[in-house]
C-alpha cells in the first residue's frame, strides 16, 4: 500500500510572530512584522525597512547550551534551531540524551546563505592576519549545512541530515524532499524547513538590484503590497519555519495530532528559457509545476479550496495569478492569499514559514486576509473575482490547499495539503 505522509508538528520564527499561537493570532489580525531598521539608514540603503523576528536573549538561551552561545553570531541558525526544536516538541517527540541516534528520523533544513555576520567577523580577522583568533565554531556557523548540523545534534537524528538550497523555493523544496524520503520508505519522520539570516549583508544585494520598495521608510507596515496596484517591490525578511513530516502509520501508532496530510507536490525549473531567466520564471514551467502537483496528488483542480501564493509584491504578481488560472482551468478561482504583506519576503525561509501559515489555516478553519491590498491590481481583477482575494480574514474550512514558491534560477515548487478527516 502506498505510504501516506502527515504533518504532526510545526514551529515558526517569523517577523510578525514567534511560536504557533502568536503566529495564528498575527495571521488572523494581519499584524505586520515590517519595521524601520536604523542600521539600513546608516548604511544608505534605499529600502530601510525589513522583516526581522523579535527574539530576546533569554529566549535564545532556552535553545542553546551556554557553550553554543559563546560567539554565536549566525541569525539563521538561531531562527532555524528555535523553529526546528519547537516543531519537534509540538509533535510531542522527545529530545533525549541517549547513546544511539534515532535511525528513523532525519532532517532536510534549507537555507540560502548562512552565518553571514559570523563570516564577516572572520573576514576582518583573516584580513588583519589574525586567522588563529577565529575560534573553533566559525566553520559550523557559516557552512550552509550548519543549520541541519545544529538541529541534528540537538535532536539526535540518525537518518539523512542535510541542507538544500534553491533560493526562495528552498523551504517548500525541503518539505517535498522530506516527503519523498518517507514515501520511499527510507525514513519514518523528517523534520523539514528552512531559515534565512537577517541583516544588511543579506538584504544589500537585493537593494542594489533596485527591486525593494524605497518609498515606505516612514510607514513600514504599508510597504509590502502583494497583488496591489501600488505594489512597489518586495520587502526583505528573515526567519525560519519547520514542520515534522511523519509516516501516517507511525503517527497513528503514537497517537500524534495530525495537522494535515501532504498529498504530493512537484519541483521543476523553467531552464531559464522561454521567458524564464535567472530572476524571472518561465510561465510554462510554472503552469506545468502546478498541473503536475495536482495530478500527482490524485485530486482534481476543482477540489482546491485555497491557494497560498508566492506573490512577492512585485509587478509579476498578476502573472502568477494568470499561471494559476491556466493550470487549474476552473470557472471559479479558489481563494488566494499571500503572507508577504505581513512578513515581507523571508527569502530562503519564505517557503517553510508560508507552509506553516497554510497548514495553520487548514487546522483552524480560516483564510487570512491579504493586507495592503485595498487597491487590487486591475490585472488581477480582470482575471479572477475580487472576492477570491480576501482583504479580511474569513472563517472557512479549507480541505485542500495548494502552496507555491518560486526562486531565482527559474526554480519552482508546488505542494498540495489536505485536511485529514478522522
Amino acid at each position, binding site marked *: 500500500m502506498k505510504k501516506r505522509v502527515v504533518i504532526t508538528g510545526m514551529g515558526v520564527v517569523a517577523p510578525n510572530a514567534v511560536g504557533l499561537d502568536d503566529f495564528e493570532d498575527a495571521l488572523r489580525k494581519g499584524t505586520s512584522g515590517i519595521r524601520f531598521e536604523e542600521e539600513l539608514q546608516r548604511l544608505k540603503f534605499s529600502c530601510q525597512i525589513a522583516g526581522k523576528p523579535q527574539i530576546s536573549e533569554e529566549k535564545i538561551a532556552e535553545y542553546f547550551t*551556554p557553550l553554543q552561545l559563546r560567539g554565536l553570531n549566525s541569525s539563521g541558525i538561531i531562527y532555524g534551531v528555535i523553529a526546528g526544536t519547537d516543531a519537534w516538541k509540538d509533535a510531542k517527540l522527545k529530545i533525549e540524551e541517549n547513546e544511539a541516534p534515532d535511525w528513523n528520523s532525519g532532517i532536510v533544513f534549507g537555507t540560502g546563505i548562512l552565518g553571514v555576520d559570523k563570516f564577516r567577523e572572520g573576514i576582518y580577522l583573516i584580513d588583519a592576519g589574525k586567522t588563529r*583568533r577565529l*575560534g*573553533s*565554531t566559525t566553520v559550523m556557523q557559516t557552512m550552509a549545512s550548519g543549520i541541519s548540523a545544529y538541529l541534528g545534534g540537538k535532536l539526535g537524528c540518525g537518518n539523512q541530515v542535510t541542507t538544500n538550497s534553491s533560493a526562495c523555493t528552498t523551504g517548500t523544496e525541503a518539505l517535498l524532499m522530506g516527503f519523498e524520503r518517507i514515501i520511499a520508505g527510507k525514513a519514518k519522520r523528517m523534520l523539514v524547513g528552512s531559515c534565512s539570516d537577517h541583516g544588511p549583508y543579506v538584504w544589500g544585494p537585493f537593494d542594489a538590484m533596485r527591486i525593494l520598495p524605497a518609498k515606505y521608510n516612514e510607514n513600514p507596515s504599508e510597504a509590502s503590497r502583494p497583488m496591489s496596484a501600488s505594489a512597489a517591490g518586495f520587502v526583505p525578511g528573515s526567519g525560519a519555519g519547520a514542520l515534522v513530516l511523519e509516516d501516517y502509520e507511525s503517527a497513528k501508532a503514537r497517537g500524534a495530532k495530525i495537522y494535515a496530510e501532504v498529498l504530493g507536490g512537484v519541483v521543476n525549473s523553467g531552464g531559464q528559457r522561454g521567458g524564464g531567466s535567472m530572476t524571472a520564471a518561465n510561465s510554462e514551467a510554472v503552469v506545468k509545476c502546478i498541473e503536475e502537483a495536482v495530478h500527482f496528488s490524485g485530486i482534481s483542480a476543482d477540489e482546491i479550496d485555497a491557494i497560498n501564493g508566492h506573490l512577492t509584491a512585485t509587478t509579476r504578481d498578476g502573472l502568477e495569478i494568470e499561471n494559476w488560472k491556466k493550470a487549474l482551468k476552473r470557472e471559479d478561482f479558489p481563494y488566494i492569499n499571500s503572507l508577504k504583506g505581513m512578513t515581507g519576503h523571508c527569502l530562503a525561509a519564505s517557503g517553510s514559514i508560508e507552509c506553516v501559515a497554510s497548514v495553520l489555516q487548514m487546522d483552524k478553519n480560516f483564510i487570512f486576509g491579504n493586507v495592503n491590498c485595498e487597491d487590487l491590481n486591475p490585472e488581477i481583477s480582470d482575471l479572477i473575482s475580487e472576492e477570491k482575494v480576501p482583504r479580511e480574514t474569513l472563517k472557512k474550512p479549507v480541505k485542500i490547499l495548494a502552496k507555491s514558491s518560486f526562486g531565482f534560477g527559474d526554480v519552482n515548487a508546488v505542494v498540495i495539503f489536505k485536511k485529514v478527516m478522522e
Partner: protein
Amino acid sequence: MKEKDILDAIKKIVTPYTQRKEGLENFSKETDFIKDLEVNSANLVDVILDVEDKFDIEIDNDSMEGMLTVGDAKNIIERKLASA
C-alpha cells in the same frame, strides 16, 4: 602571579567547555583536559584563545600541542609571562 591564581583562572576558563562536570571537583595540575574534563578536542583552540585573552600572551601551535593537562597549561602560561 601565584600558582593558585593561575590554576583558578584556568578552571574558570575551562568550565563552560567541560562536559564531565565531576572532573572539576578534584581539579588539579594532573587534570587532563580531554580525559578528565571531556573537553571536545575542537574546543581546545577556544580554551587557548580565552587563556591568551586572560593573560595577555600568545600561545603558538607548538606550545598548544604540549598542553594536555592543567599543569602543562600552567607551565606554558608561567613561561610566557616570564618572557613577556
